């Protein structure tokens, strides 16, 4: 069990992560100026965008680990994939919840079939399907392979999904797109956003490390309980 090593890694990632989170809150609430056109609501941006970034990165990890798992068959790759997928789905949930909170003020509506919202929603469904599929088979090994196939399929589909929904919308009058990184953006806004990106990335990897350790332990426990045949035929009795 190298799990103590894993835990140490998790803590080493979490400490700067939490520090950056604290810094981010100070920046967001005390330091960064209020954006001129959108007002206070724009501050959601500093968690919304980092969440989206982390979610995409997580799904990228899922796809890469899934492909490698199918190729090499190493169980650890599958454990990494499921850990990343769980995180990816949660961060996508954050994106989908904070987005409408912003849109209600900025666009005057909770939900709109704006391209980015639509692709994010579909992405969420695809990877919820990934998590469901793992538990839906009688043989866990099969579930892992099926999920890996879906994980790869999902990432391949993303560019086409995005292209399609953008296309679909572009034929209609387009709503305002939020662009704080536009020409008039204050450098402090960029700094705050970068802090958010760094904080979320570190936190994601810290939690994912723990999630991975959990997956390892789960497998080790089922080995101890569900019984590999005893190593020696002569053993036993007592």
């Amino acid at each position: 069990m190298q799990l103590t090593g894993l835990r140490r890694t998790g803590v080493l990632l979490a400490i700067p992560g939490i520090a950056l989170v604290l810094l981010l809150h100070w920046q967001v609430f005390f330091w960064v100026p209020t954006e001129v056109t959108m007002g206070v609501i724009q501050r959601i941006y500093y968690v919304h965008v980092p969440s989206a970034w982390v979610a995409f990165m997580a799904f990228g990890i899922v796809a890469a680990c899934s492909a490698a798992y199918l190729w090499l068959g190493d169980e650890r790759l599958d454990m990494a994939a499921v850990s990343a997928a769980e995180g990816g789905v949660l961060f996508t949930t954050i994106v989908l919840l904070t987005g409408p909170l912003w849109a209600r003020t900025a666009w005057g509506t909770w939900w709109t079939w704006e391209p980015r919202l639509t692709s994010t929603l579909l992405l969420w469904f695809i990877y919820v399907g990934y998590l469901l599929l793992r538990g839906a088979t009688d043989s866990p090994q099969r579930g892992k392979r099926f999920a890996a196939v879906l994980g790869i399929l999902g990432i391949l589909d993303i560019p086409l999904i995005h292209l399609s929904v953008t296309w679909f919308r572009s034929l209609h009058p387009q709503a305002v797109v939020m662009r704080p990184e536009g020409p008039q953006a204050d450098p402090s806004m960029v700094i705050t956003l970068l802090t958010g990106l760094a904080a979320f990335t570190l936190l994601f990897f810290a939690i994912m490390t723990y999630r991975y350790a959990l997956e390892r332990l789960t497998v080790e426990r089922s080995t101890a309980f569900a019984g590999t045949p005893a190593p020696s035929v002569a053993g036993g009795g007592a």
Partner: protein
Amino acid sequence: MRKKGLSFSLAIAFVLVATSLLMAQGAGDISQLARQNLRPYWHVFIAYILVWLILFGWVVSIARRLGRIERGLQGSGPPSGR
């Protein structure tokens, strides 16, 4: 058990910090821009709370699952049938 308590207290600390900071900021702005709608403040407030609730929910769920397995591994050990 200790880990669980730690995550809970951290969660509460964060929510408190976020809440108080937002309140402070909101209160300041209200006095200056009294005419502005209050809704955006609430939405920012809810958004930040949701983010940390979800993340801490994830951490707590992992910690609980880890704890359960570790108790299983150390406490009972493999069943005596073998």
